[in-house]
């Protein structure tokens, strides 16, 4: 071989020379310290956006869905786009937590808490749309199998009902998963905080956790099982979201690749969102030693892989649409790439397929600013993906006489922007009051946590990797 390569050892999960005490302090002090001024500013802005959301919803309830840009034939607009977009973002949290846990990827510990919180708030934002789009929001309980005055039941053969079960199950399980992870850390804050009210509040939610190894034993088992349950759950939720489209016979929606394609897209946008948030938070809260550049690089690889998978699905869709020989399929895919919404299609393609390709370069993968920009671009692209899927197929359907162009109204935009208010209001509360990194788990993956890394006298001996000198001109052995 003419070219030689340098071996790069696996980087440490925690940078710098920290012991357990430092880690505890670094993370939980954020909750114990007085609130910084900047936080109030951010919280104020988020609250204003939240008011915008509440106002938009209020007007919607008062006036009806006519305030949105929906028309015939485009009966599904921004509401479903935003729903799918937020749910998709909500998938990275559980994915990072559960799948990476099952695959024993230690690097998840730096970001899992964070990502799970993001999941919960993103699913809350998502859940708003199906609830408000029904028009008569006061009978929204008809979505659930509850006895009602019509003596009717919801249709269990309908993917829209599957959605109700999928999203609510996902929200509940994610919340439980998050909370189980939080309990030991809440106990840590309880034991460190000085204020009486704080002690009380954290104490109640810590449930009297005292770090007993008899408890840890069941706890680890529980966490393992939850991870095992959450992994297929993540797949199922976005699969069911894709079924909303794919079980229909609308060209461009009815295609069998939708389930894995939606899941890949969800992971893709979710990781991008975690990256955006992580890059800001690690800077502001000085957690660069915990959320390291190596973590960012690993996440960028996931973004690259899933982005490419999404690209694979785009190509497959185009190919099979042609291969199928079905004229409506062929037509709709031609309209996507060259019709009235071609601009959206190519924004989607550029953002989702081309932009992550920069991450083939190690240099760019490790560049914080660049990663931040790409992570935003990816989320824009993923919003457009849902836009393209929803709108193109509806606007030019089977009957040319009813074709129409769809544009959103100011209320569509206001509702969407408002959901950011909801998201950031909760997210800021999370940053302020809850440990944003899983302290106990992070300690558990540090080399100091492994009993094997101590010598006979109880002194810590860090594990060393020595790269061997290659044998020269030796063919045997």
């Amino acid at each position, binding site marked *: 071989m003419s070219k030689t390569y340098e071996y790069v050892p696996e980087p440490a999960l925690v940078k710098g020379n920290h012991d357990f005490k430092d880690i505890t302090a670094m993370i939980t002090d954020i909750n114990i310290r007085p609130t910084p001024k900047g936080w109030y500013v951010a919280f104020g802005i988020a609250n204003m956006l939240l008011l915008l959301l509440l106002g938009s919803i209020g007007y919607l309830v008062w006036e009806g869905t006519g305030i949105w840009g929906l028309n015939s034939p485009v009966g599904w607009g921004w509401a479903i786009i935003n729903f799918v977009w937020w749910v998709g973002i909500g998938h990275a949290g559980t994915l990072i937590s559960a799948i990476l846990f099952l695959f024993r990827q230690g690097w998840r510990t730096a970001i899992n808490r964070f990502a799970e919180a993001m999941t919960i708030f993103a699913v809350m934002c998502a859940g708003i749309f199906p609830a408000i789009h029904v028009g008569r929001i006061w009978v929204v309980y008809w979505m659930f199998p509850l006895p009602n005055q019509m003596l009717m039941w919801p249709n269990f053969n309908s993917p829209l009902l599957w959605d109700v079960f999928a999203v609510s199950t996902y929200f509940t399980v994610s919340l439980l998963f998050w909370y189980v992870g939080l309990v030991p850390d809440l106990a840590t804050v309880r034991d460190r905080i000085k204020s009486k009210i704080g002690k009380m509040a954290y104490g109640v939610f810590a449930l009297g956790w005292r770090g007993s190894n008899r408890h840890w034993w069941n706890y680890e088992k529980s966490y393992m099982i939850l991870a095992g349950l959450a992994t297929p759950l993540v797949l199922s939720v976005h699969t069911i979201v894709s079924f909303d489209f794919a079980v229909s016979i609308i060209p461009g929606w009815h295609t069998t690749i939708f*389930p894995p394609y939606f899941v890949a897209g969800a992971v893709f946008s979710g990781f991008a969102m975690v990256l955006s948030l992580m890059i800001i938070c690690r800077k502001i809260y000085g957690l660069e030693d915990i959320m390291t550049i190596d973590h960012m690089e690993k996440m960028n690889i996931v973004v690259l892989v899933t982005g490419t998978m999404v690209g694979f699905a785009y190509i497959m869709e185009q190919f099979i649409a042609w291969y199928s020989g079905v004229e409506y399929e062929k037509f709709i895919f031609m309209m996507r790439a060259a019709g009235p919404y071609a601009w959206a299609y190519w924004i989607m393609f550029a953002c989702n397929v081309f932009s992550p390709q920069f991450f083939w370069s190690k240099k760019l993968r490790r560049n914080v600013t660049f990663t931040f920009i790409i992570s935003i671009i990816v989320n824009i692209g993923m919003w457009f993906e849902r836009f393209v899927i929803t709108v193109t197929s509806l606007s030019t359907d089977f009957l040319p006489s009813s074709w129409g162009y769809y544009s959103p109204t100011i209320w569509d935009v206001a509702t969407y922007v408002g959901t950011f208010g909801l998201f950031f209001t909760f997210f800021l509360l999370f940053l302020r009051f809850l440990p944003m990194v899983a302290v106990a788990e992070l300690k558990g993956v540090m080399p100091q946590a492994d009993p094997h890394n101590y010598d006979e006298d109880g002194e810590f001996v860090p594990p060393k990797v020595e790269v061997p000198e*290659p044998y020269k001109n030796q063919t045997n052995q």
Partner: protein
Amino acid sequence: MASTSPKITDSLQFPDNLDVTKTFYGFGAVGLIASGVGYFLNAEQFFFSYLTSFAFFTSIGLASLILLMIHHITRSSWGVVIRRIPEAFASNLWIWSIFIIPILLGMHSLYHWTHADYVAQDPILAGKTAYLNTPFFVIRQFIYFGIWGFLGYKLHKISVDMDKTNDWGLMELLKKLSAPGILIFAITIAFASFDWLMSLDPHWFSTMFGIYYFAMSFQALFPILILIIFWMHKKGILENTIQKSHIYDLGAWFFGFTIFYAYIAFSQFLLIYYANIPEETLWFYHRLEGSWAYVSYSLIICRFAIPFIVLLNRDTKHNHKVLISVSILVIAMHIIELYWIVMPTLHHHGVSISWLDFTTLIGLGGIFMGLFFQRLKKHKLVPVNDPNLPDSLHKTYHQ
């Protein structure tokens, strides 16, 4: 590690007195000759049986290849001790490519779209001729096997080179090869599955079919690895190196990808069943007709339900007898599922088993396994200089 790093205590050389290669080649030769005779008796049946067997063994090579690439890209340590097995499978893909030739020769029997008169009457098929035509089909096979053969050969070669040179830098090279490799692999396996299997019914289409073929193959790889390891242990090979925890891990992957397979297969079925569009539904309709229906139901039970329930329990992954039985069951179901995909094209109204189904399986299987053992024998049974080897030997999980 402060504690002494674990050492390999087993012999790393495949025992000389164990001459399985010849036995397998013998079986292979007999099987192929018998199938050759079958060709003259019933050419059409021969080609369909051959295609089924070919799709089965190729899928194992391909699944090994993707497993290796995933392994390198994630730098996993769990599988280092068993890595030579998939490496040996994947490294033979370039030799294996000669076995596509009978399919190329039998295209006219296998694929309707090769009949010009038939295509001329059918506007839908006529629209597909840009893709479904004989020269392009042949060229594509060269491209697929060129890519797979290169990747498989290279990944094995670099890995054995590391045994000799102890140059850890080669780990980076493996990674650099695997990253684009996965991407190219995904595209090629999808189109290969369209070519070999989906175009048997040229009207039918499913965007997910490539993923479906991958999911099937990947699920079946783990039981194969498990069986090979048990066989090796029985012969006293790597008894202390491949430990309980590694087999447990394989069992866990087996379990996980059983669920993944079910998810993909079910999604494909549900979407087609629910929408009920004639051009799509027909494919499943044929497979729920006559005795094919029993095969369809047995797939749900034997390929998903039984392995799922059995492997759900942690203890069964340590119970060798149970693990072996489930492994054999799933491998058999993989063959049956491929049979179920291929054969209804020939036997519309019901299952009709031919002796050629067995001879082609034995023939190709003998050659495939013979090649495998020949490759495995030549090199050390464990990548001895892998940086992650100590970690892999160290595994003791309590979960």
